[in-house]
C-alpha cells in the first residue's frame, strides 16, 4: 500500500507541474487579496486578513478541480492501458492498490495546499488552520472523484475529456445552484463542496462523506474488473 502511495506521490512531485500549480495558486491568492484591498471597504465586508484566504479559496474554486482532474484523471486507467497493472495485482491486493493511489494523490495535494496556506498565512500574519482543513476536504472530494472516474472509464483519452468537463461543470453548476430556486438545479449545491464553505468546518463533513462514497465505489468497481 505504502509502496504504491509513495510511487504515486513521487510521480506527481516530479517535473515542473507541482511548481507551476503552486505558483498559480499563490499568485492568484495574493493578487486577489491585493485587489480586494484596493477597493474601498474591501470585498463586501472582508477584513484584510480574510482577503488573503478568500483569494486562495477563489483560486481553488477556479483552478482546483481543473488541476486535480488534469493530473489524476488517469491515475488508474493509465496502468490498465499500459498493462503494468497486471504486475501490481499479482503482488498486492486490489484494495491496497486503490488505497495507495488515492492516498498518494491526496498527500501530494495536502502538501501543495499546506505550502500555499503557509505562504498566505505568512503574508497575512495569521495561520488559517480551519481554512486549510476545509481545503483538504475540497481536494479530497476531487481526488476521490478522479479515482472513481479513472476506474469507471478505462480509456484515458475519455477521462481527460470528462475530467476537464467536470472541472468546469462542478463550480459552474454549484454556483448556479446556490443562486437558483429551480428544482432541477437547486439540489446540486448539496452534493458538491462549494456550498458548505460558508458554514462551520463541521458542515464540510458532508462533502467528506461524499468523497468516501466515491472512494468506496471506486474500490468496489476495481474489485470486479478484469485487468
Amino acid at each position: 500500500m505504502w509502496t504504491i502511495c509513495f510511487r504515486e506521490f513521487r510521480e506527481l512531485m516530479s517535473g515542473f507541474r507541482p511548481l507551476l500549480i503552486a505558483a498559480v495558486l499563490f499568485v492568484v491568492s495574493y493578487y486577489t487579496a491585493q485587489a480586494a484591498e484596493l477597493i474601498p471597504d474591501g470585498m463586501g465586508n472582508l477584513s484584510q486578513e480574510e482577503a488573503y484566504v478568500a483569494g486562495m479559496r477563489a483560486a481553488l474554486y477556479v483552478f482546483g478541480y481543473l488541476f486535480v482532474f488534469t493530473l489524476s484523471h488517469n491515475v488508474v486507467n493509465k496502468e490498465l492501458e499500459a498493462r503494468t497493472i497486471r504486475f501490481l495485482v499479482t503482488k498486492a491486493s486490489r484494495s491496497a492498490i486503490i488505497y495507495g493511489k488515492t492516498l498518494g494523490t491526496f498527500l501530494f495535494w495536502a502538501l501543495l495546499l499546506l505550502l500555499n496556506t503557509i505562504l498566505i498565512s505568512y503574508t497575512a500574519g495569521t495561520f488559517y488552520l480551519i481554512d486549510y482543513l476545509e481545503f483538504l476536504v475540497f481536494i479530497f472530494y476531487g481526488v476521490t472523484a478522479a479515482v472513481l472516474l479513472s476506474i469507471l472509464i478505462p480509456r484515458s483519452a475519455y477521462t481527460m475529456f470528462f475530467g476537464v468537463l467536470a472541472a468546469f461543470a462542478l463550480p459552474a453548476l454549484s454556483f448556479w445552484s446556490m443562486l437558483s430556486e429551480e428544482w432541477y438545479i437547486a439540489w446540486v449545491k448539496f452534493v458538491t463542496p462549494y456550498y458548505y464553505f460558508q458554514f462551520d468546518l463541521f458542515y464540510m463533513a458532508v462533502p467528506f462523506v461524499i468523497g468516501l462514497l466515491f472512494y468506496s465505489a471506486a474500490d468496489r468497481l476495481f474489485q470486479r474488473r478484469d485487468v
Partner: protein
Amino acid sequence: MMRIIRTENLIKSFGRERVVDGISLDVYQGELFGFLGRNGAGKSTFINLITDIMKPDSGDVYLFEENFGIDAVKDRIGVLPDYSSFYDQLTGLKHLQFFSRLSGKPATKKRSLEVLEQVGLEEAARWKVGTYSFGMKKKLGVAQALIHDPELLILDEPTSGLDAESVIHMQKLVQELNREGKTIFMTSHNLPEVEKICSRIAIMKEGTIALEGSLKELQQQFQATFMVTIDTGTTLGEEDKARISRGLAEKKRGGAWEDGLLHVETASEDAIPLLVQQLVQLHVPIYGVSVEQPSLEDIFLHEPEQVSDDLYKT
C-alpha cells in the same frame, strides 16, 4: 500431499465465447506442471483467473489450500502474466526493488542483482526498460516473479520469444527452481519442451482439459487411431473409386480419396491386416501401403486443418 493450486469448475466467457469452460485441476506441492495447448486454447485466460488478473464468471480457485482468497497468499506466489508491460522509464533493477517492496518482502540491491543474473540480465540491470528487447522483458518478467522468493511460480510461456540459447537457459532455470522446492505451473505450446522438463502435463483444448497426467499416462490414455494410406496408382477411374468407397461403407469403414491415394482409418494396429484383405476383395490395386499414427502433438497442438480436414474426411 498439499494441493498448491486447486480449481473447481472454473468458467470464463468473453462475450458469447466460453474461453475457460469448467476446468477443475489440482497441482500438487513440488510439481513442475506443464499446461499445453495451441494458441487461443485458453491457457492464458486460465492463468489470469488463478492469479487475480481476471475474475471468473463462476467456479472457485484455492491456492495453498487457503480459504481466505488470493490476497492472503499473494506474497507466496510469483507470476509471469501474459500481455503485461513494465514502466519504460525505470531500470530493471529499480523494477525489482519496487516489485519486491510491493509484495511486502523488500529485496536488497544485492539480492536484486543476483536475480537479474539468474535470468541472464546482469548487464542490463541499470538500463531503462524502455530500451529492452522483447526477450529481455520476458526475462525481467521471470525475475520479478522470483524476486520475493515465492513458493509457487506461475509462468505464462516463459520461453516463447526467446532466442534458442536463452530458451535452454530458461528451461534449466525452471528445473533448478523446481529442484530447490518451488512448485511450478507453466504454460507452453511446445510439446517437446514440456516433455523435456515437466513432471506432469495437462492439455487444454477449446476451454477444457482434454488430457491430464504424466507423459506416459497421457500416451496410454490417448488411443490414437491408425491412418492407413493405400497407393492405388493411376489406373482407377471415378466409377471404380465410387465402387470401392461403397464397398468400404458396407463394411462400415470410411475412406477418403486424394487423387490415387485412399485414406482409411482403423481403430487399432490389429485391424490393419483385415483391412488389407478387404481391399483385395474389392479389387483395389495396391501399389503401396503406409501406416501413420498421429502424435499427441498432431492432435492437440497443431492447427486443426493439419490433421482432421483432409485425412478424416469420409
